[in-house]
């Protein structure tokens, strides 16, 4: 990082020292040690990233620093947290009185959480909530607090700060709410800011904006930051120092460049090997499977093989979508007349070929999930045609439409929510076989279920277990087995790997690619994650506000992006490489809403072909200028 020199020397007294901290949940025989003997220092003005996957204890560590574990059922059973707000005298937060802690929380140490909707109180205006912190800790009167609140909102680059003060949280977008959270956290000029996955729930372009703001403000105010995250890209972009946590223990610590360049602990190596890196397939026309290092009982083990995914067969498309339009009515007058519509999908056309993966990329509100749901007949289209194997879906009989649900399968984002908690996974996997009457014999069904479980890398005896007995990655494997059960031709994967830890994600992506080769499957891969898209897809369609703005081969779209939105999206992705120069262009702007009053139809983009098979929407000049 180029700005390292400007920051205080790391040899001075640390602002915060965590010494052999251990945290336990539960009591007696059922006690579970979430954090084991963790130590690290935070230097004033520097950013420490605490990285780890789910269950690594990173969030618990951050809560324990502020002693917030007291309120979540945890107990600090050992160690100390030394805080030196003025650089000399150290205060042990583990032993500090509640009154002292209240003084420190929000004042000297502030915190931002992952979910900006739930961390703001829905019944108070933004202004009131910021002012509350100010009147509490700084003793300002109402009017001064309001003026200061406005300044803070301007600091986090929220436009129209004056008006925002009187708005309620639900009237703001996720990105705006997270900026309000940052403004609140910075209200009292804290010495230390703890950010717990602050951008995980946000779209990439919004994430880039938030990261930018945090970085700028940190330089301006000299705040030290503890950044909790699972995203190695964010780490590379934000951190000066890194602590890697695994199963409640600190496994490695060091400056960010060293961690990335020469990871010492096998877990860190495994983690880094699993991170998809944007640009890693530059120059290669086809997606490629690469081996992943997984931790097998503490030992790193290489799984999988390098394999070029030359599965696509471009003679005849399996699915043809023509001018598909899906709109939802919202907002009705008293007499039931529709006033507004969500223009989720507007005249979208694309083909998918056998054995091919088409990625549908876009941010929230782009309509990508609606396309998937329309194809799966979960949502009725407003217009357009869908042909499967040359047959028009609209002209199909009820029975044929049912059979289409067998040939097209859907994998949802959240493997925790998409399995019925009351049934065994064996039942869930057998269900498509039963409802489509594929196999009648009970024993044969059981055999088939076991076979499917083995195909997705699980054990046959897992069939008798319930979903809650599995980890997230295993559950997603169950969902994949369920999707395969009816022997489909096309699988729609809707953000299917987005909620998983990177090491699991890499394995699931490999599994999907392997299954594609073995069973000649086509995928419609819906996601917002450009790095995963690069790894898995043959062709890419970029969506913005319900329309495709760019479509072409993965190589063409990634290496020669033509549309300004595609470029914006690509530049917003945090790259897991601290050596890389940060993009200088600053991304601005919210994602516009697809809700429009009745009668105001959006303009349909005209497409032009830049090279064979690579189509781009023609942009009005002002759009081009803004980007």
């Amino acid at each position, binding site marked *: 990082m180029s700005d390292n020199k400007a920051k205080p020397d790391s040899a001075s007294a640390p602002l915060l020292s965590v010494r052999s901290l251990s945290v336990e949940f539960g009591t007696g025989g*059922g006690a*579970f040690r979430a954090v084991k003997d963790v130590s690290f220092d935070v230097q004033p003005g520097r950013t420490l990233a605490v990285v780890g996957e789910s*269950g690594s204890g990173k969030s618990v560590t951050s809560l324990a620093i502020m002693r917030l574990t007291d309120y979540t059922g945890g107990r600090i059973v050992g160690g100390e947290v030394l805080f030196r707000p003025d650089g000399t005298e150290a205060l042990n937060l583990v032993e500090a009185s509640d009154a002292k802690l209240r003084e420190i929380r929000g004042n000297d140490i502030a915190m931002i959480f992952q979910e900006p909707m739930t961390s703001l109180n829905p019944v108070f205006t933004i202004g009131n909530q910021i002012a509350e912190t100010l009147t509490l800790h700084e003793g300002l009167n109402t009017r001064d607090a309001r003026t200061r609140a406005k300044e803070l909102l301007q600091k986090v680059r929220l436009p129209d700060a004056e008006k925002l003060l009187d708005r309620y949280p639900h009237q703001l977008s996720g990105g705006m709410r997270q900026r309000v959270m940052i403004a609140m956290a910075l209200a009292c000029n804290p010495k230390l800011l703890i950010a717990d996955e602050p951008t995980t729930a946000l779209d990439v372009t919004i994430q880039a904006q938030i990261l930018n703001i945090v970085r700028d403000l940190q330089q301006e105010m000299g705040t030290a930051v503890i950044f909790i995250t699972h995203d190695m890209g964010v780490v590379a972009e934000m951190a000066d120092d890194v602590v890697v946590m695994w199963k409640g223990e600190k496994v490695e610590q060091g400056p960010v460049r060293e961690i990335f360049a020469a990871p010492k602990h096998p877990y860190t190596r495994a983690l880094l090997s699993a991170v998809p890196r944007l640009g890693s397939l530059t120059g290669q026309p086809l997606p490629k499977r690469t081996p992943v290092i997984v931790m097998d009982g503490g030992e790193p083990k290489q799984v999988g093989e390098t394999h070029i995914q030359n599965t696509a067969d471009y003679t005849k498309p399996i699915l043809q979508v023509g001018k598909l339009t899906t709109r939802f009515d919202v907002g009705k007058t008293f007499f039931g007349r529709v006033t507004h519509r969500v223009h989720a999908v507007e005249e979208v056309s694309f083909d998918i070929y056998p054995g091919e993966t088409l990625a549908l990329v876009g941010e929230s509100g782009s309509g990508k999930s609606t396309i998937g749901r329309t194809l*799966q007949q*979960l949502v009725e289209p407003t217009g357009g045609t869908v042909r499967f194997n040359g047959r028009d879906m609209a002209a199909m009989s009820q029975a044929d439409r*049912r059979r289409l*649900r*067998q040939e097209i*399968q*859907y994998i*949802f*984002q*959240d493997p925790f*929510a*998409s*399995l*019925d*908690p*009351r*049934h*065994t996974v064996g039942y869930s996997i057998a*269900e*498509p076989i039963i*409802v*489509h009457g594929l196999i009648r014999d009970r024993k044969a069904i059981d055999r088939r279920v076991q076979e499917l479980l083995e195909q997705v890398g699980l054990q046959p005896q897992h069939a008798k277990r*319930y979903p*809650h*007995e599995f980890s997230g990655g295993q559950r997603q494997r169950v*969902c994949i087995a*369920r999707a395969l059960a*009816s022997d489909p031709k096309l699988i729609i994967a809707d953000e299917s790997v987005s909620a998983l830890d990177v090491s699991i994600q890499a394995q699931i992506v490999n599994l999907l690619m392997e299954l594609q080769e073995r069973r000649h499957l086509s995928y419609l891969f819906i996601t917002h994650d450009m790095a995963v898209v690069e790894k898995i897809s043959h062709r890419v369609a970029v969506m913005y506000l319900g329309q495709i703005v760019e479509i072409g081969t993965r190589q063409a779209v990634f290496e020669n992006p033509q549309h300004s939105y595609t470029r914006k999206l690509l530049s917003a992705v945090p790259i897991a490489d601290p050596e890389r120069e940060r993009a200088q262009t600053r991304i601005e702007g919210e994602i516009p809403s697809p809700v429009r009053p009745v009668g105001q139809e959006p303009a349909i983009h005209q497409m032009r072909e830049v090279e064979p098979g690579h189509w781009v929407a023609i942009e009005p000049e002002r759009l081009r200028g803004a980007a």
Partner: protein
Amino acid sequence: MAGAQAVSPNRRRFRSLEFALGITLTGGMCLAVLFSGFLFPDGGESMDLMARLIPPFQDPAHILGTDPLGRDVLARVIVGGKISLTVGILSVLGAVVLGTLVGLVAGYYRGIAEVLLMRFADIQLALPFILIAIMFLAILGTGVDKVIFFMIVAQWVQYARLVRGSVLALRDREFILSARAIGVGNGRIIFTHILPNVLGPIVILMTLNVANNILLESSLTFLGLGVDPLIPSWGGMLADGRTYLQSAWWVSVFPGLAIMFTVLGLNLLGDWLRDLLDPTGQTGK
């Protein structure tokens, strides 16, 4: 997630303790009531004015004492269970079946069916209960069957509202959507995916309502709208004994205990059943 991994052995033992206690109390009570005709051929109706108000545990012929008319309290408690348990259990079962069906249909299909059913339910909830009872039973006449029928009519609304609320929360959950994506039909979704997920709260409301209805039967009988006041029932005995509470506590305390133990047993069984239905073992915590 981590906490849900396995039910602790401690909890499992408690669960079976719940079941053992519940089945002993409820089962014992039901058995006694079933064989009451055999145990007390007189139906607890033979009076002996010479042996009025004998305190319990003094006369071996009347272990639980006698009431102001010299009738054996033990006999009446056991015979009285027949009416009380029949009314309590059948009325609740009927209301559950009706209410759950209506709630499932209204919550799952939404639309006009929901509007009509739920407005009807609201109207019914707004009318004073006792007023409907008087009107209803005055027209139909009295009797055990009519009382049960009336209770079903009066109470299905509670279940319908409860179920509809749960279904509304469930129907947009991803596993329902994913079942639909697989091609599962509406009927199968309702009965294999939604119903098992709404049973927990229904079971709890059921066990509470059994107790309620046993007492309700006595109120109706007291008003002359229930069953024949001469036939012993727990609620009726409670009401009768009230005037003697100062001098002869046993007349009303023993039927009260009978109600308490039955309800306790049913509650324990209900908790056990709810845990049994929930493989994650989390709802009880």
